[in-house]
């Protein structure tokens, strides 16, 4: 018998809150890479994302006593870091209206197959169509797919991070999957059999 991961996570979180450096180091080693990856994808300027992440964690330490105990530490950290990125960005683009900001954000989420198509300059008609459909996925759809498949998060975590409701989070993923399925699969089966 052993304790579940989330139980030890909760313990680490509590220790961190009470000022335990070691616990903070554990949290850093566990979550820094994921947040780094996410930040690099959300902002084109990679130094900006990195600086933001440094400040974010130092701030987290300074505010530790006032922090809540989240259901999911990962989702909590990703969501707070995302908010901070947008807020910092807003500050540096102060002349722009706030409402533009979400439209302004980048989502650097590419699919392996996309780059394969680009690198090989494949010109088969069905594959061109495929590429077109890939490009037609919205930023939010890409972000949701990234959080679901790359970061392997649950829907309630995704909805918390993207500040949308549970149902919208599910829809973003399902709709993109349906779109891909409708347009891709026939060509893909053919495609995969020829290249893989």
């Amino acid at each position: 018998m052993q304790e579940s991961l989330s139980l030890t996570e909760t313990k680490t979180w509590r220790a961190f809150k009470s000022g335990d450096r070691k616990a903070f180091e554990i949290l850093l080693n566990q979550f820094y890479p994921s947040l780094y990856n996410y930040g690099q994808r959300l902002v084109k300027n990679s130094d900006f994302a990195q600086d933001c992440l440094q400040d974010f964690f130092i701030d987290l330490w300074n505010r530790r006593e006032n922090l809540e105990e989240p259901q999911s530490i990962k989702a909590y950290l990703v969501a707070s870091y995302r908010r901070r990125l947008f807020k910092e960005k807003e500050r540096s683009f102060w002349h722009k209206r706030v409402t533009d900001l979400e439209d302004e954000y980048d989502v650097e989420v590419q699919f392996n197959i996309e780059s394969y198509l680009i690198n090989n300059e494949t010109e088969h008609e069905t594959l061109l169509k495929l590429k077109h459909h890939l490009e037609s996925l919205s930023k939010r759809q890409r972000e949701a797919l990234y959080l679901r498949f790359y970061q392997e998060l649950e829907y309630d975590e995704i909805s918390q991070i993207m500040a949308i409701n549970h149902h919208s989070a599910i829809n973003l993923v399902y709709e993109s999957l349906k779109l891909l399925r409708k347009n891709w699969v026939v060509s893909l089966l053919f495609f995969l059999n020829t290249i893989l």
Partner: protein
Amino acid sequence: MEKYLKYHIEDIVQDLYFRKWVLGKLPKENLNWENWLIKNPEKQAIIEEAKSLVIASQIEEIEMPTNTIQQNINEILNHIVTPTNPFYQQNWFRAVAVVLILFTVGLVLEKTSIVSLFKLEKTIPTQATETENNGIMPLNLTLGDGSKVSLKKESKLEVSTDFGEQTRTVFLTGEAFFEVQKDPQHPFLVYAGGIVTKVLGTSFNIRAYNGENNIKVAVRTGHVTVYREEKVGVKNITHPEQILLTPNQQVVFEKKEEKLVKTLVEKPIIILPSIEKKSFEYDETPITKVLTQLENAYGVKIIFDADLLANCNLTASFSNEPLFDKMDIICETIYARYEIADGQIVIYAKGCK
């Protein structure tokens, strides 16, 4: 793996276990999916389609410079200020304090006899005020310290005359629900049918009818200690066996065997008010996460093997059904069973594939 028979293609694509298989992350000797396909050949087409979707929607890696990441982490750690303990928390101060206290105690003990010190603790008051409830409705009482007692039918509560001096001692026959005011300096003691329940401030229920074979102490909030009352004439300076109870736990005292057994109350209640409003909705949620959430909501320890349950998921929505109904549903879906032992829920599972 039976659940996959009902899955739509979009669900299969999102299933972690399936994705691991497609992306070659399962151990080679694991042939569960291959075997499943042999057993369910009609699923071949849908699995092929799901496979190509997983491969196609695989997200491209970006550069992750390990050195930079490690450097950044170290930089953060160098940047943060560790709180320095105030002087009274530092070791040298504690050491000095302990020596001083021992010295003082030594002085006091020399002047007073040891016997009289222990006697003080054991004095059980004889003169007491008494309240009896002969009606059917519970009788609500407020004690001198503000603690509330709901005295159930055919029950009697005596409050000792020195209530509030050293301790807050009461004697109960029958059943009562206590909401005790916090006062760590004056422990609240309930003597009932041979056992003593000691609390500092909390709420709990005691059922100790003379005609019944056992006595039950059930905790609603806070912590409660229960131990056997020392028999008159038996001088026992070391502390008797004490049982610590947390919310939703109860102790049963078998009068014949004089044995204290720790278990759970029949209907555990949710102790976190924030979760009370939230329903328990699960959509392919890892079972370990579900169990941890229930554990926190009810404050009841659930023991399970996280590795064994790693592949178990739950899709269900719970509302107000009792905790044990929820446990029944969970165990049915993951082919497991549970037992209650020592006030905890222990899950015996075979794991999911």
